[in-house]
């Protein structure tokens, strides 16, 4: 039992479960899953599907944060990749052709990858602080997207493209498969190779890693490139969902959601140790929270406040220090004479 409590994913998962339970109590239909024509529908399925773009972005963000960095440009990169893909489809004589759509997707993601490489170049080669380096693209990216779409919101009609975000395979949304595949691939690359360990080493102690011979420049560069690539894919999903390239709205503030998801999942903003599983839980928590707002009918005007309050509560629940205080004060009530014997376990010997 204590081992379960001590597991680093216990509190993130507990927070997610509590959210689901609160929703279900408020409206039991929340957990209802209905089958229509062999396809699953329901609020939970929507959460799984709608979380796909954030999942992709947050995975990349996890790796970047592990290197002690941050990537603010992910939302803007989403806008660019969507704009590129949709402009290609719009300009094509055959918008429903499989080939057209594939070319559009690959080009959009490649452009995003190049933008990620640019971020990585600024951070790892030039040595600009990550927050400033990625701020450049965060601001310029949407301008680039507007340039590509000619200042308009490009809308298209293309069934294969629509399928990416809205289609179903084996009863589940295709977007869910995309997001699961991304999780699996990133996890495989990070954990089956030494990339994850080396990334953590660079994040924990860059100078010691350099002297140990770790090619930290390449590792940091790769993190931003991967983040860009995943953001590009997220941009494709987003634009497929609304079948439009909206340079101003695509991925707006998603960098903040992603950072929050990473932190909720237990990865420290100080870099170093990271948890991909934690990020997955964090993403679901945030997406559930967003559905809660629409589901419970919270008025749009107060929804940011509602979101903020819930996030604060979730973060507080996860705070080891706060839990220590609570544990101690309850113990004192039980046996006032007891010494503070929880303290020793709170402070690790350094």
């Amino acid at each position, binding site marked *: 039992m204590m081992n379960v409590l001590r597991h680093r994913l216990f509190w993130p998962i507990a927070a997610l479960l509590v959210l689901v339970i609160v929703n279900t109590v408020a409206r039991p239909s929340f957990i209802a899953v209905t089958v229509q024509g062999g396809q699953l529908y329901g609020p939970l399925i929507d959460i799984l599907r709608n979380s796909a773009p954030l999942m992709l972005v947050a995975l990349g963000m996890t790796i970047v944060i592990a290197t002690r960095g941050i990537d603010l440009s992910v939302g803007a990169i989403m806008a660019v990749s969507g704009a590129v893909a949709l402009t290609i489809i719009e300009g094509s004589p055959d918008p429903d052709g499989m080939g057209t759509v594939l070319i559009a997707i690959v080009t959009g993601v490649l452009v995003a990858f190049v933008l990620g490489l640019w971020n990585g170049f600024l951070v790892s080669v030039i040595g600009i602080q990550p927050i400033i380096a990625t701020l450049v693209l965060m601001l310029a990216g949407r301008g680039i997207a507007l340039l590509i779409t000619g200042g308009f919101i490009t809308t298209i009609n293309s069934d294969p493209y629509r399928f990416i975000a809205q289609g179903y395979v084996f009863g589940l949304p295709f977007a869910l498969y995309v997001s699961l595949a991304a999780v699996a691939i990133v996890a495989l690359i990070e954990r*089956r*190779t*030494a*990339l994850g*360990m*080396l990334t*953590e*080493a660079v994040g*924990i*102690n860059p*100078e*010691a*890693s*350099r*002297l*140990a*011979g*770790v*090619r930290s420049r390449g*590792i940091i560069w790769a993190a931003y490139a991967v983040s860009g690539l995943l953001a590009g894919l997220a941009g494709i999903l987003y634009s497929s969902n609304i079948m439009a390239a909206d340079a101003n709205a695509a991925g707006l503030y998603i960098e903040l959601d992603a950072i929050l998801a990473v932190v909720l999942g237990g990865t420290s903003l100080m870099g*170093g*140790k990271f948890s991909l599983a934690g990020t997955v839980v964090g993403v679901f928590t945030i997406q559930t929270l967003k559905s809660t707002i629409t589901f419970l009918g919270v008025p749009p005007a107060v929804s940011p406040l509602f979101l903020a309050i819930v996030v604060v509560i979730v973060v507080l629940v996860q705070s080891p220090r706060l839990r220590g205080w609570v544990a101690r004060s309850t113990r004192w009530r039980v046996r006032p004479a007891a*010494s*503070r*014997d929880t*303290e*020793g*376990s709170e*402070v*690790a*010997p*350094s």
Partner: protein
Amino acid sequence: MLADTEVAPVVEMRGITIEFPGVKALVGVDFTLRPGEIHTLMGENGAGKSTLIKALTGVYAIDAGTITVGGRQREFRTTADAQAAGISTVYQEINLCTNLTVGENVMLGHEVRTAGRIDWRATHRDAARHLAGLGLEIDTHSLLATHSIAVQQLVAISRAMVTESRVLVLDEPTSSLDRGEVEQLFAVMRDLRARGVAILFVTHFLDQVYEISDRLTVLRNGALVGEYPAAELPRAELISLMIGRELDELSALSRTAVREIDRDAEPVFHAAELGRHGMLAPADLEVFDGEVVGIAGLLGSGRTELVRLVYGAVRPDSGRVRIRGKAARITSPRHAIDHRIAFSSEDRRAEGIIGDLTVAENIVLGIQAKRGWLRKVRRAEALAVFADYAAALGVRPSDPNRLVRDLSGGNQQKVLLARWLATAPQLIILDEPTRGIDIGAKADIQRKVAELAGQGLAVVFISSELEEVLRISQRVVVMRDRRKIGELVSHDIDVADLVDYIARHEIAETVA
């Protein structure tokens, strides 16, 4: 000047027990500190010295026992509680604000105020008075960062005096000071003792222990061994109390150095005129197979700078390097590693270990970096490497899954040595591998170095302890004022000769 045992103690710790998950760091330890004494806490790394200090300074809460300060029983929840009780601490790593001025640091929180505003002139005047009280005449308007570690330490002590502390805890203040600076610090400590301040002192240098201490408390494995007047405890007995067994190992090692080195062969490493402007005057260095080359010199003499240039940690701007006779270009650690040169930095924590990774991960990091990220060192392989190197060096606890930051300094050093040995180097550079670690770990590391050299490994060994340098190396490169002043054959000389050589000003011709 032994404080009278009859004087009421200022600090009494009784039955102190502290537990960490799975470990009892301290078990029922008693410690008594009297006004006007310098009381040295002795013990190997991991004996519980730091833990006891952290209990006294409010960093750790105690699980059992009592702390009485000035006759009143206290419960320290935070470091502020301890400070309020009159206990000030100067840590090994200075905890001052280096970006503020000296005066601001000394008076922080105690600035002189007139009408609610800080009177800076009066504040600096007070700061100067406190500094002068310790014999320190420096400009209080200068930035702290511009001063040496020694001066910063004295500033930290001045600060403790501003808060009118009755107890001063000095946790290894001398580990990065040179001889003159240590003298200055000791003069200040004697002065404070005369004023009735109780000083708790921790150091790894036995000479210093006997030079300054009135009383010794020895800890071993988290338990109290005993309290002794320094004058009545012979050095050898102290050492055996600390390690709990007779220690002949160090003396058995003595002069393993006397070994024939084949200097006609091609040297493993040869540098000519290696230097960097403003860092090191161009110097030559040669290391042969199976040879240990010691580098002696005071702190800041250029010994660390020399090896950092050799390793490419800093890019040299002059010099030619040959590896086994072939010209090589080493401008980054990667180049050095590709030439099978390993380097263990003197700054274990900042430049050595990766604290949040496990012992096994830290050990395989060197191999992994060499292989690249695609070919991961598998778990079984990592455990084998751990068994081959770490276990052989006696890393304790012998647990590959423990986070390396939870290990004591000596064990961290062993982990680093294991990391580099696992990469099968032909030349290993060890910068102060024995600094700040206990005597048992020191013996382990010295023995391992001698053994490896015996097997043909070329070693460059830096240590502040000249005796250690002489004992372990065949040849000694002597540095002074950021240049190489000569080379000596170590079995011809003793420590006094070496000190004499360093002290002489003229720059000798290179002997080799």
